[in-house]
């Protein structure tokens, strides 16, 4: 049998972030899914996907939060916790950095309307914000 390319293990960790972002997931947990040490995992993940695992997980959570802001009337606090974040203040700061407005302003700017029936996996892939520099990365590569 051919050896498994290392990127396949990194993809498993990326899938884990997509599927379990609601849980208290962190980089060491993702690294375990890829059978790598956290430091090596972060370097290899960035090499393969162009961003750190922390950036990926955070932007996945922000993408899901944005979807909930657009599609539900959940409170901002509930949405913050629902996407796996534990601090409303940090959530609001990260959200504003990525979407250039507060969660409340984002919701007001995106009223519910009929949308095309695009598969969820496509929506999640295309709607995830580009990761920029997050201050969180300094301590959580």
């Amino acid at each position, binding site marked *: *049998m*051919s050896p*498994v*390319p*290392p*990127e*396949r293990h*990194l*993809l*498993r960790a*990326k*899938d884990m972030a*997509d*599927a379990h972002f609601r849980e208290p997931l962190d980089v060491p947990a993702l690294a375990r899914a890829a059978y790598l040490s956290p430091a090596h995992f972060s370097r290899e993940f960035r090499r*393969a*996907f162009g961003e750190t695992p922390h950036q990926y997980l955070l932007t996945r959570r922000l993408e899901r939060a944005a979807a909930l802001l657009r599609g539900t009337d959940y409170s901002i606090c509930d949405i913050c916790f629902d996407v796996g974040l534990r601090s409303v203040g940090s959530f609001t700061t990260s959200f504003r950095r990525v979407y250039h407005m507060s969660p409340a302003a984002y919701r007001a700017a995106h009223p519910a309307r009929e*949308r095309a*029936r695009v*598969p*969820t*996996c496509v929506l999640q892939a295309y709607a995830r914000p580009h990761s920029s520099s997050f201050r969180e990365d300094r301590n959580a590569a």
Partner: protein
Amino acid sequence: MLKQLTYVQVWVHDQDEALAFYTDKLGMELREDVTVPEMGNFRWLSVGLPGQEVSITLMAIPGPPVFDEDTRDQIQKLLAKGASGGLFFTTDDAQRSYEELKERGVEFTQEPMQQPYGIDAGFRDPSGNHFRMTQLPS
């Protein structure tokens, strides 16, 4: 004009592993398994869902003379990184199919979820190809 879609191709990392996955785990049937010595032991391997004519060819990523080593390596990495596209299936019962496939060891990327278009779930094959299965509204 075009009449019918007969084959779709997916790249696979290992044909034997893929064949076992698509038949034993996903329940597809083997359609063709032909090795051609005069073509460098090229192996034409196809599977399909019982009752549906369209086949899936499980294609190994070739080296020279088809692709140079760099190109083969790039495709291999893209496949392993999940960047190779996907296929969409339907199912009569997404939750039941999910439980059956999970029991067989299929790697799911998403549990069944209610969506505007039905209930769907996502999974991968051992190579990294991404698939969806959707239970359409009755």
